[in-house]
């Protein structure tokens, strides 16, 4: 029963954090290199620009959902199951989502890595 709860939480974490990661990555690409911006205009300009990017709060909300799902998961399952399982599957889902929505080139090297990570996740769930 606890396992079922933990896996339900893991599924929710994957969905929410992939949505969040894609939205946040898209937002930060629009903001541009924060290190450069900080040097030129200061920290307030960086914060102002990040917070006024419309997709940023949406990404933050998705991450909030993922965070509370993580709290649920951690109270039911082992740290060494919930965190690696959800995060690694999120890694695979993100590779697919980054390719589709962010138009990043995910080469053969990264797909093989995704499979290695997925296999590792299956082994951790046994």
């Amino acid at each position, binding site marked *: 029963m606890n396992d079922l709860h933990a896996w339900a939480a893991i599924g929710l974490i994957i969905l929410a954090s992939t949505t969040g990661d894609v939205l946040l990555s898209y937002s930060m690409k629009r903001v*541009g290199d*924060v290190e450069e911006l900080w040097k030129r205009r200061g920290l307030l300009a960086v914060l102002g620009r990040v917070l006024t990017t419309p997709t940023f709060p949406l990404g933050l909300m998705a991450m909030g959902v993922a965070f509370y799902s993580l*709290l649920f998961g951690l109270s039911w399952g082992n*740290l060494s199951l919930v965190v690696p399982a959800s*995060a690694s599957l999120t*890694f695979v889902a993100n590779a697919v989502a*980054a390719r589709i929505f*962010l138009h990043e080139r995910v080469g053969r090297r990264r797909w093989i*890595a995704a499979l290695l990570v997925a296999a*590792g996740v299956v082994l951790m769930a046994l």
Partner: protein
Amino acid sequence: MTFRKYLVLVGITVFSTAGDSLLARGMKEAGGVSLHHISGLLLAVLNPWVATGILFLLTFFACYMSALSWADLTYVLPATSLAYVLVALVGHFRLHEVISPTRWLGITLIAAGVGFVAGGPSLTPTHDHTNSAEPSRDAVSHGLES
């Protein structure tokens, strides 16, 4: 990639590991949270371990956002994935959670996958067609800011 940018990637790994471990310790203290007692979940934030964990995760988030501003999502993610192996090790050595041989093998495969990505190119040239459109829109939407 400058030395400072590599430090930001290290920060992602370390702060998320420390944050998750503190959260786990706090949530074990707070006991099991059920769907029928949502208030328990909200009150868990008052636990000092959970609160410190959240502080660390906020620092992680700042590093993560910084990295996403100058690197691909698929490049930054391996750096975060490394943290999950660290989390399992911390769970084993600090929280005394049992890790079976198959789980150890799983951890090894995940680490190998991360190493595989890290050894590849860090920035994808495909950025061109998205980026060429973005800065112009960016300049317009943020042009009023002084």
